[in-house]
């Protein structure tokens, strides 16, 4: 593990595996520990996971970010600092929104692009779920078709302080809200056509947060014809519901010559 310092804040960067770098911007809740999904990816690629502001390992710099430009700027700093300029990039949920923005606005920054159930579009006829108006008991089944996988992922990492871990999780929710409130549409549709990176859209077929039908909305707004892969039976946290199937679909896409 190493750290990148941006504007006085320390951002954790996990790195594991051999070969060409593959960046990953985590989804809702961020990452408290190295997951089986990451492990699978790291069997073929050197997986590099920088933590976004406010998410676990990402400090508390989200409070300095007032709008999308601020988020894009810090994400660029983070990718460059982690040695990911020009590397392939996976982004999930809010991390998917930022990965798409970076690929659209800074074409040289991203090799191949994988968007896992990204936020960024909003169609009132089939709304993205409000993740921020939920009873705690509803959250696991909102994000996962295997709620027990979600519960396991939420558990305090061994050796960490339980109270601090609860605060870390709350901070991650706040960071996501800071970026996405109220509905997560920050104008990405107007920029999607600029993405030239070969792109895979990966979705859990049972996503209750960003419905799987959004894959088509993203594809329609892009200038290219991206690949679309549905992971059958998985929810929004496809990395928890189907870690192997999700990782294999991504690795297969990355292996294919552009």
């Amino acid at each position: 593990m190493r750290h990148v310092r941006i504007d006085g804040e320390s951002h954790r960067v996990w790195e594991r595996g051999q070969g060409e770098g593959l960046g990953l911007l985590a989804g809702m809740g961020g990452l408290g520990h190295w997951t089986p999904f990451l492990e699978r990816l790291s069997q073929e690629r050197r997986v590099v996971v920088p933590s976004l502001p406010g998410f676990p390992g990402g400090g508390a710099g989200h409070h300095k970010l007032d709008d999308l430009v601020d988020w894009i700027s810090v994400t660029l700093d983070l990718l460059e600092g982690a040695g990911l300029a020009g590397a392939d990039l996976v982004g999930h949920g809010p991390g998917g929104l930022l990965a798409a923005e970076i690929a659209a606005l800074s074409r040289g920054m991203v090799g191949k692009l994988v968007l896992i159930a990204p936020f960024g579009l909003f169609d009132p006829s089939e709304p993205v779920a409000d993740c921020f108006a939920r009873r705690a008991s509803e959250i696991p089944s909102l994000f996962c078709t295997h709620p027990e996988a979600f519960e396991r992922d939420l558990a305090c990492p061994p050796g960490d302080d339980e109270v601090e871990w609860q605060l870390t999780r709350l901070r991650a929710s706040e960071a996501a809200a800071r970026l996405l409130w109220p509905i997560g549409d920050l104008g990405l549709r107007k920029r999607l056509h600029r993405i030239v990176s070969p792109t895979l859209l990966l979705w859990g077929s049972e996503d209750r947060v960003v419905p799987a039908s959004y894959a088509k909305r993203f594809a329609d707004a892009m200038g290219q014809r991206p690949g679309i892969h549905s992971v059958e039976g998985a929810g929004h946290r496809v990395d928890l519901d189907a870690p192997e199937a999700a990782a294999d679909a991504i690795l297969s896409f990355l292996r294919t010559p552009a």
Partner: protein
Amino acid sequence: MKILWFHLMPYTDLPDDFKQKHPSVWVDIDSRLFDPAKAHRMYNDFMDELEFAAESGFDGVCVNEHHQNGYGLMPSPNLIAASLARRTTHAAIVVMGNSLALYNPPIRVAEEFAMLDCISGGRLVAGFPVGTPMDTCYAYGINPSQLRERYHEAHDLIMKSWQSPDPFVWNGRFTQLRYVNLWPRPIQKPHPPIWIPGGGSVETWRWCAELDYVYAYLSYFGYQAGQATMNGFWEEMRRLGKDRNPFRAGFLQFVGVAESREEALDLYREPAEYFYNRCLHVDARFAAPPGYTSEATIRSKVVSQVLQAASRATDARAFGAPSFEEIVSKGYVIVGSPDEVAQQLREVAVSLNVGQLMLLLQFGNMGRELTFYNTQLFAKRVMPQLGALFEDEWENRWWPKPLVAPALARPREIAH
């Protein structure tokens, strides 16, 4: 002490099965339950009640702001306050208040409050709430993670706009204005008294102490539950070297008075049950948008077992369904004969050390006649027993300083 009459303006015709059939009184309340013709009567009754309270001798009348809320029909309390400014003569007009982060640009609040102060002849108390999660984050879409930053910036801008004699440029994080030059400006100098309605956050207490504002704890759960919060407030004042001037603090209390305790229990059961079971039926989904409560406050609550227990109890109350017996025994509503109510309120004021006592004498579906009865009996038989409290010992530096005759205008009589 000051005794103020507070109206929430609840919709009084929510159905009997509201709680069973509807998830929430707030944010996504079923709009088909709203009958504008009935609301016409309600608004006019409510405004009559506020005017009657002022006429009966209450020191102030209070209104507040809620959005998409079945128990608070005042998205704009300033509209009601404008009418009160014309239809009352002596009472303080206490707007409790405008949720600063909801106004764009926030000088709108400075302008409207200045108008109210001018129209009323300097009787305005300016309340600056952050606002509940339901009002601000869900109904008005303000980012919960930015709400307090926006609130504080808006506050600074408003205060400067009231006091700067010259036009100035505002280059804030959230608001940029090339020309800030307030017109009209408030009568009260340097500005109307500022009251801050708040929960139990230490940061808010410190902020009120630093800026010399009134802290008003507007709980619906009475003096027993409020004791811990007010103890915390006064302990923090002591720590900061501030005096125990009771006029630094406001507190909200429901009251139902009648000739006898039996009569009071009989009269106020239905409106109390209506309020606590229908009006407070708020969906827990809307209780805690991420970032609304600062990490420092959460941390202090996690660390302090006492506050943690208190906050759990508050949550349970907020979303439970208390019986009338509980409502009375826990002191959510003080009911009784005039002497009993006076004695209890004296204890409340002394034990919480609160000099600005805000009373809800209309609550739930209480009709106009009962509200008038409650108000009149309180004014005649309770108020005289309380008014002198604290007055000899402490100066109320947080009370409006209105114009006096002959500077005061008199609205003309309306010929019908």
